[in-house]
């Protein structure tokens, strides 16, 4: 007998509940033989994302970095065994080109591709440091080969050709402009074909912001590509992403990215105690930060007065503070996820800059890693070439960290981020 007043049950609920009971005795062993046995065709890919601030010149940097910096970029990419490297922050140098015809001079605004020239130097150094990778460089350009910029900035991709990897294309897509994050409205899209032994090659789609916030009235770059269904987005912002979740949410929504593993460590190097203090404390009569930049003992003695808080200096690489400005996002819109992020970590550039003998005292308690001391020789060159570091500074842990920080600021205030990705084949039809 049916109960009076009993609520109607959704027939779909009853059907699904009954179906669940009916499958209880079905085999839990694999019935579909998946490709390659039970293993989905896939490979692991290491992508290094490095925002090299003002590579090619800018307000803080000259058009050409010293050779030891170029070698440092290449040495780190080689040490991390990256397969693909995104270089963001490449600048062009505005210039005025003068032409003369029949005694009439014509002036035209142009851009000297100094940042791309620097990237080519990095490629040349990388080809020596990791010759077996057969590295290549690709930069966004229009159909006539003219480099594309947004806000005077562009990006570049270094990728390994070894193992038969080939470039499918590099095009430009619409993205999301956000002045807070220093983003223009366009993305650069690299597409690579990755051979897989015994199976069809995989396609790898990597997106990154083309440049920076566009200037008022700037001509937008030509959009010549369409957004791939699934992709990896390497993202580097000028602001602290943990403090500005809203703009990052908007960027994520604009490309409908579905995964956002934010870093657990800072990727943007903060200023040292005295640099920050001199900006905020107008009462300081003398500023010794430009004299003996790696002599914190002297700064403490000369600049500290009782109205200021006690100086706080990093004595190990783990004490160095910064913020999160970089992220790696994925979008998986196909039934089988094409991309999985196995690990994203910030390269500890302080450990990279330390000499092998300094790692034990200044390197902190982190486990040994690939970057350890990979830039020690380049830091030594920086010390030789930089008199303002203070040649007579005592070799204390705080001074070593300060000297490393000075060298690292020259490379970039952003530390590179290494994303270890799993790239998987799209799902084949079971009846294929």
């Amino acid at each position: 007998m049916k109960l009076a007043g009993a609520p109607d049950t959704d027939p779909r609920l009853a059907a699904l509940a009954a179906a669940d009971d009916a499958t209880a005795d079905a085999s839990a062993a694999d019935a579909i033989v998946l490709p390659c046995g039970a293993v989905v065709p896939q490979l692991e890919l290491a992508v290094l994302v490095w925002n090299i601030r003002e590579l090619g010149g800018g307000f803080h940097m000259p058009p050409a970095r010293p050779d030891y910096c170029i070698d440092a970029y290449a040495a780190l990419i080689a040490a991390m065994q990256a397969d693909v490297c995104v270089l963001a922050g490449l600048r062009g140098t505005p210039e005025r080109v003068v032409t003369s015809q029949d005694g009439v001079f014509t002036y035209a605004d142009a851009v000297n591709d100094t940042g791309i020239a620097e990237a080519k130097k990095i490629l040349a150094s990388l080809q020596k440091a990791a010759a077996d990778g057969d590295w290549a460089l690709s930069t966004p350009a229009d159909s006539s080969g003219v480099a594309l910029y947004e806000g005077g900035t562009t990006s570049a991709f270094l990728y390994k050709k070894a193992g038969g990897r080939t470039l499918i294309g590099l095009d430009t897509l619409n993205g999301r402009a956000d002045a807070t994050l220093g983003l223009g409205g366009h993305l650069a899209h690299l597409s690579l074909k990755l051979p897989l032994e015994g199976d069809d090659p995989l396609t790898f789609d990597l997106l990154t912001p083309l440049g920076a916030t566009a200037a008022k009235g700037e001509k937008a770059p030509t959009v010549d590509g369409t957004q791939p269904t699934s992709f990896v987005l390497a993202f580097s912002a000028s602001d602290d992403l943990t403090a500005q979740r809203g703009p990052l949410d908007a960027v994520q929504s604009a490309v409908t990215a579905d995964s956002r593993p934010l870093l657990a460590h800072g990727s943007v190097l903060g200023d040292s105690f005295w640099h920050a203090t001199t900006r905020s404390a107008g009462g300081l009569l003398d500023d010794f930060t430009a004299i003996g930049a790696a002599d914190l003992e002297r700064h403490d003695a000369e600049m500290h007065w009782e109205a200021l808080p006690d100086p706080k200096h990093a004595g190990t690489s783990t004490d160095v503070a910064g913020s999160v400005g970089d992220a790696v996002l994925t979008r998986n819109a196909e039934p089988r996820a094409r991309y999985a992020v196995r690990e994203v970590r910030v390269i500890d550039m302080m450990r990279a800059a330390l000499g092998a003998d300094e790692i034990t005292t200044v390197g902190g308690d982190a486990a040994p890693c690939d970057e350890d001391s990979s830039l020690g020789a380049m830091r030594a060159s920086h010390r030789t070439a930089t008199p303002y570091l203070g040649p007579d500074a005592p070799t204390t842990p705080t001074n070593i960290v300060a000297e490393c920080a000075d060298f690292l600021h020259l490379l970039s205030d952003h530390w590179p981020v290494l994303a270890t990705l799993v790239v998987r084949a799209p799902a084949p039809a079971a009846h294929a």
Partner: protein
Amino acid sequence: MAPLTIRAEQMRALRAPFLQRLFDAAIEHAHRCHADVAASLHGDDLAAHVHSAIDSAAAYDLASQRDVLRFVSLTLVFGGSWNDAPGTRWMHDALMPHAGASRDASMRLHAFYGEALARLSRGEIPAGSGLA
């Protein structure tokens, strides 16, 4: 010794008898547990739907007979192509290996099945979107 590589056509040959058994079981399951839906599909429509559902199940890395039958049930109730419609997008997302989700596809299906039952019991899934 050089490794042996199983070619695609060999893999298809290996897979064929398993798929046929699975297909037969899924058709029987549809008639037994979703008789009204199965009856409403004309001609070869039921076979086509089950073929498509088995393909989708493989794409979500569902491989066991039990998981595939449960997945077929879900497609008979809610329809296929969950990724295309806003109302069913959450179903697709539930089976995707997102960060925070189980690494095991079978576990994701189990959680999703429970969630679907819970939402149906709360009246949160409007009727008319699927085949049922």
